């Protein structure tokens, strides 16, 4: 500490109050988010990953597909920060572009099931009756299958690549959202304010859209953060198995696979894409934990 005079006993405090004031004036959710460490940590990690992915076209050093067969499996150097792979492609550039493909696929793939699942779950939980019973049995059946087996089988059937991934997840992944949203709709629908809204003569679309959904969607959003991890893992796994994003497009999974034969001499070829998957996973998990805390209704 310097010996400079403190202006008033509460100088530091005032600053804190002023800062606090900025946050307090905003929405209560933002106020809670600003104090949630795991949310901030998760968002930062993920932010960096997304930033790198978005900026890939500007910060890559070589086109990710450009081969240089005279310079394969090069060691890291100023020209190739992470060396080159078995076809002489720059690993750093491929890593960035792979992140771009994998993250984009993860986020986009989740959008379809979250939409379908939330709509179906809300309607089933609100109107109940036999459609709800039928739906719940379908959900049970889909859930009874091992997740990966189902996805891999479907991708096999529908065809490899992005299209197959989208279809496979759209067909299977909505069940978790439907189940989560259905059960919270059931709970919320029994509360006094739901009855009050009905008793007040509000229309069903209004009750569902403005009251039920804002209270139940948080569950789906929180689950989505961990679901994106599953999806990215699945995309990477499919890539590793040759069913995912198709060569020569870069993908962390195929990079891990391609690097495997050179594990003893060029260990980073497989390890670094693997680390990228792990770091993304940690970021999303922290974000999910934080969101669950922040969005929990009081």
């Amino acid at each position, binding site marked *: 500490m310097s010996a400079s005079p403190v202006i008033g006993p509460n100088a530091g405090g005032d600053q804190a109050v002023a800062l606090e004031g900025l946050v307090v004036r905003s929405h*209560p959710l933002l106020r809670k988010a600003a104090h949630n460490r795991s949310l901030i940590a998760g968002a930062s990690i993920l932010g960096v990953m997304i930033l790198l992915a978005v900026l890939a076209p500007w910060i890559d050093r070589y086109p990710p597909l450009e081969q240089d067969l005279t310079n394969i499996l090069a060691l890291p150097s100023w020209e190739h920060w992470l060396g080159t792979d078995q076809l002489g492609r720059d690993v750093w550039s491929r890593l960035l572009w792979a992140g771009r493909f994998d993250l984009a696929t993860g986020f986009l793939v989740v959008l379809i099931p979250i939409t379908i699942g939330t709509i179906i779950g809300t309607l089933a939980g609100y109107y*109940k009756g036999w459609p709800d019973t039928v739906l719940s049995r379908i959900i049970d059946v889909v859930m009874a299958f091992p997740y990966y087996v189902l996805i891999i089988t479907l991708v096999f059937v529908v065809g490899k690549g992005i299209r197959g991934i989208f279809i496979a997840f759209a067909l299977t992944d909505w069940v978790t959202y439907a189940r989560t949203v259905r059960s919270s709709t059931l709970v919320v629908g*029994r*509360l*006094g*304010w739901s*009855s*009050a*809204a*009905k*008793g*007040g*003569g*509000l*229309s069903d679309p*209004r009750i569902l859209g*403005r*009251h039920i959904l*804002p*209270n139940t969607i948080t569950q789906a959003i929180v689950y989505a953060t961990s679901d994106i991890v599953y999806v990215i893992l699945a995309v990477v796994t499919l890539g590793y198995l040759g069913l995912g994003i198709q060569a020569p497009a870069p993908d962390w999974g195929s990079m891990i696979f391609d690097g495997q034969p050179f594990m003893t001499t060029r260990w980073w070829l497989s390890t670094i894409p693997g680390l990228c998957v792990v770091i993304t996973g940690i970021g999303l998990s922290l974000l999910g934990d934080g969101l669950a805390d922040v969005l929990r*209704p*009081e």
Partner: protein
Amino acid sequence: MSDPALRVDGLVVEVTRDHERFRAVDGVSLAVERGRSIGLVGESGCGKSLTLRAIMGLLPDRAAAVEGRVTAVGAELPLAGKGVAAARRGRLGMIFQDPGTGLDPVMTCGYQIAEAPRRVLGMSRAQADERALELLRLVGIPDVERRMRSYPYELSGGTRQRVMIAIALSSEPKVLLCDEPTTALDVTIQAQILRLLVDLQEEMGLSIVFVTHELALVGELCEDVCVMYAGRLVETGRTADLLARPLHPYTIGLLRSAVDLDAEVTAPVPIPGSLPDPLNRPSGCAFHPRCFLARPACETADVALAPAGPGRASACLYVEELMTRGLGAGVP
């Protein structure tokens, strides 16, 4: 006598439990005059809340109103089906027991109060907001401008209950159905909310149906009272008269089991036993296993609410004995 604001005739509500159906509300009839209030009293589980919810058309899934007529402000209201909410619009409003779950946690109070005026009564946004401010002032909330923007978790239980009353009033009902609105509140707040309901009744000419398990509260608020036991009305009458001279052993039991701070001997006397299992209803008078007056005839006789003096009715076989011997008189 003018048309009552709310009239219920022979209401029967069936509940399904463990694949068996039983009548949780069995032939309840009541009427509330314009600008008056009626109390519906009984132990938890006797069917008071179901009666209220059936009137409002908000029965839970396993319950259904199978018989009976509900008329309010000159129109018969459907008990179930599509037009349930529409028919009650502008006629009935309801407030619920638990202020903790009575308000939508993700919407501001102002939004929730202004919603019905805007969406149901077709006001503009500005008009609806103005109306919401008015209603907040009406239910006695200070600093209304700030409260409009408050989320429910920022409010105390009493304030929430006031906001819930404002929401119930926002669709401009003539009859307010209150489902134990004070049970979850502190005693001091209870008194304030009761006071508010009395004021609203007088100022707006509102009719009130007040469900509670505390007879004492009914004495504060309601002109008339109905005592309910195991799904049926067992006694009705003017509140002051009924409290002073109860004509059914169950009412006597309720009065004796309440703590009375004015009486000199204050030990409350509980009613022995508990409510019968609705799937195993006792024969004859359902109250006979717990009744201090029970005689063999009570186990077989068909009891029904019968007139017992001016403005009074009781379902006790020995009501005359109660009247002449004054068994109930002077119970604390």
